[in-house]
């Protein structure tokens, strides 16, 4: 099935509940380019879920506009609009009285697809999200684990191949191990599907891991910063953003790069026995050096062949971090860690 993604534009989008002094979402303007993941993140009360629900009109706009591929959401028929947007929520909300297959088939059925086409699509989707459609398809939601349920939720949202996905803390209720696995698989899926995704979370680490761009919302639904994860970490727009991303933002920035991206020194023979795979993040590599009381570590490719050597100075002296105020933080964190 050919996939296509839509550009999403918030244009001064505002939600004001009557009788409340503060807006829930205040003149939010941002553009999510087609095929990118925009993470809405912020403290509770920041209006991130409200902003998300404005898009499929589960909450009505008070003012401003939201456009999908240039056309206003207000011009669409409400049910057609919703059927054309994938929607995933934290509690999943699977229909408990329907099998996994029937749940995934919900929107295609509403759209009147043929039985044959629905059956093929459901099987394809369950495979895509890592479920066994022969075994799991006939089961009921109560028979699944939390992680499996959210996989079904994701498959259901993708069923009619929507150009836009809204995801409201989809992994928020899962334990850290399952959450990490689903995040990875979601990114792998997104690599194939290239949907436009709006993803709400309150977890800045998840935002950094998932997002192509991050929109940080502050109390009263105002946009504090909208930028790539790198720039949010290295150049927070103000104290609020700096505080929200955390004092360890320099370390978090290290997590955005891998050993393979460094200019490695040539492999040395027998110098360092320990070696890490090239896809290890700089943050994990630094943690490894600290734990091993080492100054350098070998880097190997997927087949275990030596690619070179990374030094502690290289990890800390990553030009991206020294060029910004965050570099000082990174340096001191490294020094502190080195003395333990």
């Amino acid at each position, binding site marked *: 099935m050919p996939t296509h993604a839509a550009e999403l534009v918030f244009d001064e989008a505002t939600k004001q509940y009557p009788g409340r002094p503060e807006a829930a979402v205040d003149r939010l303007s941002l553009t999510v380019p087609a095929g990118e993941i925009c993470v809405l993140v912020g403290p509770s009360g920041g209006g991130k879920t409200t902003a998300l629900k404005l898009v*499929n009109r589960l909450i009505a706009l008070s003012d401003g506009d939201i456009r999908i591929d240039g056309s206003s959401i207000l011009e669409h028929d409400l049910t057609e609009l919703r059927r054309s947007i994938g929607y995933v929520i934290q509690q999943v*909300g699977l229909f408990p009285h329907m099998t996994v297959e029937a749940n995934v088939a919900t929107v295609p059925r509403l759209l009147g697809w043929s039985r044959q086409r629905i059956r093929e699509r459901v099987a394809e989707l369950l495979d895509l999200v890592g479920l066994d459609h022969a075994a799991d398809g006939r089961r009921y939601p109560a028979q699944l684990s939390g992680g499996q349920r959210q996989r079904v939720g994701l498959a259901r949202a993708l069923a009619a191949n929507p150009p836009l996905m809204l995801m409201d803390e989809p992994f928020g209720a899962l334990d850290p191990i399952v959450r990490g696995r689903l995040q990875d698989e979601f990114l792998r899926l997104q690599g194939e599907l290239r949907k436009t995704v709006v993803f709400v979370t309150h977890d800045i680490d998840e935002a950094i891991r998932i997002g192509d761009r991050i929109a940080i919302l502050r109390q009263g639904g105002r946009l504090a910063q909208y930028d790539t994860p790198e720039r949010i970490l290295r150049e927070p727009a103000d104290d609020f953003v700096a505080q929200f991303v955390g004092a360890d933002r320099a370390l978090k920035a290290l997590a955005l790069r891998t050993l393979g991206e460094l200019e490695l020194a040539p492999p040395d023979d027998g110098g360092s026995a320990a070696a890490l795979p090239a896809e290890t993040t700089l943050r994990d590599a630094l943690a490894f050096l600290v734990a091993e009381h080492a100054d350098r570590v070998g880097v190997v490719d997927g087949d275990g062949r030596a690619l070179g050597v990374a030094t502690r100075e290289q990890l800390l002296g990553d030009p991206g971090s020294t060029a910004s105020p965050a570099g000082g933080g990174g340096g001191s964190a490294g020094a502190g860690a080195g003395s333990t």
Partner: protein
Amino acid sequence: MIPLLGAGPVIPNFGEGSSCERTNGWFCGSWLSGHWGDTLQPALLQHVELSLVAVAIGFAIAALLAVAGFRRRLVDAPVGAFADFLYTIPSLALFQLLVPFTGLTETTVEIALVSYTLLILYRNMVEGLRAVPAEVLESARGMGLTRVQTFVRVELPLAAPAVVAGLRIATVSTISIATVAAFVIPKGLGYPIFIAINQNLFKTEILAAGGLAVALALAADALLSLLQRALTPWSRA
């Protein structure tokens, strides 16, 4: 009941049946085989009919009220209170209260029986519809199900266990209350009991008819519990 009893014969007369019947033994098999065809079987069938009609009408009325009331407090509060009120009227009194209006007719009996089903059926339907989890409704809305589609495809099937649970209670209690209908019309399993009481407490007939009423209630309950299982394969997951 007292004047009716007083109207009976003073000297015990248990007819010319077997010795068991003449001495009013606890349970006479001979009477049972002799009167199944002319007394018990017709009474049983009438009883089934009285109960079935009452539960069916009650179900239809309760369903309409529940659909109107489960989202609207303004409807639910007065409907609930009225159903409560009907339920509190003693059945014997309600039958007697209705006689001046609808006479000694089946209508009188059905009105009373239906009244007693309403509370149980209505409350169970409303609770079942309201118990549908909020996240399930939100995902239904988010996927573009209309109000009607959400009701038919999601809320109704999810409310089914509670609805059938109410149906079971209403059916069993209707079968039980329907014996009192004999005070108004000569029908149902209450009628042979009524006759036997007037014939100096003829024990076999009372036990046979009463036992049939109990058996009918149990059978109906078992049947509905099968229906409940059939409707909700997912709840055994």
